[in-house]
């Protein structure tokens, strides 16, 4: 399944248990991220144990989007037996500086910045 906007795509690659974010995500408010949040929730429900998320191609994410990822981290607390592995990029400022905030909400996320 793929969500597409003018400046972004969020793709769930079921065969690889992988979600790939690409482009620029600066939606107007948290409610505008609902579809993406739902994709994350459905994907973690779908995988057997580990969901991988590749953020390294997402150039921008505003604070509303970061909040939505945090809400997914909160959701993850109540999903038994599942974990998330996130890959990000050190050369993209929001990822280098803010992606680690997700770890404050759950210990079920592993983050690697490359």
């Amino acid at each position, binding site marked *: 399944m793929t969500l597409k906007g*003018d*400046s972004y795509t969020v793709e769930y690659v079921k065969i690889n248990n992988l979600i790939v974010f690409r482009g*620029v995500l*600066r*939606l*107007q*408010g*948290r*409610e505008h991220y609902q579809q993406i949040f739902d994709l994350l929730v459905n994907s973690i429900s779908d995988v057997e144990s580990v969901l991988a998320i590749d953020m390294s191609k997402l*150039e*921008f994410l*505003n*604070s*509303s989007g*970061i*909040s939505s990822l*945090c*809400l997914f981290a*909160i959701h993850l607390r109540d999903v038994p037996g599942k974990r998330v592995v996130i890959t990000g990029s050190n*050369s*993209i*400022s*929001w990822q280098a*500086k*803010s992606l680690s*905030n997700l770890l*404050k*909400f759950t210990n079920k996320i592993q983050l690697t910045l490359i």
Partner: protein
Amino acid sequence: MKNLVHIGDSIDTEEGIENIFSVAILPLDIFDFWERCGQFSDLIAEYFEYNFSDRPGCKNLISTVINELVENSVKYSKNKSQPVELTIRKRGDRLVITVTNSVPRHQKEKFASVCKELFERDLDELYVERVEAASRDSKFSGLGLILLKKDYNAQLGFNFFENDQDLSYVTISLDIEV
């Protein structure tokens, strides 16, 4: 300007300024075409990129910071037909940014108390608390401002004031290393 209330860091916007870029934008113009917010932030980032050519990734950082400030001011302006005034100044390896917008009178106290907490609380704790609260209530939470202060180590100052017609405004000043 009257009834000035200052919260947070005192940020000098005059001493040692090398470059300056000022612009006024109408919140309505952004609301109608939200993508403009990002485009506008990218434009400013490209403008200042030349001044920080020895800093890889500076364009991405500048655009991210400007975008947060503009989104914030546009969303919470009282009068969407009244310009938001934005000025970006370069000082050494830093940018000093001010943004001024109108504030709804009934939300002024709430906004001021949110700003005060940025200087009174542990910011990691505050961020977690606000995100969890924001999941239940979509009103102003200041999450973007918390991230700018906490993750980007920005100095932040807030000046609340009224004009001669008793309309309320806030100027947010931000001083950040690029």
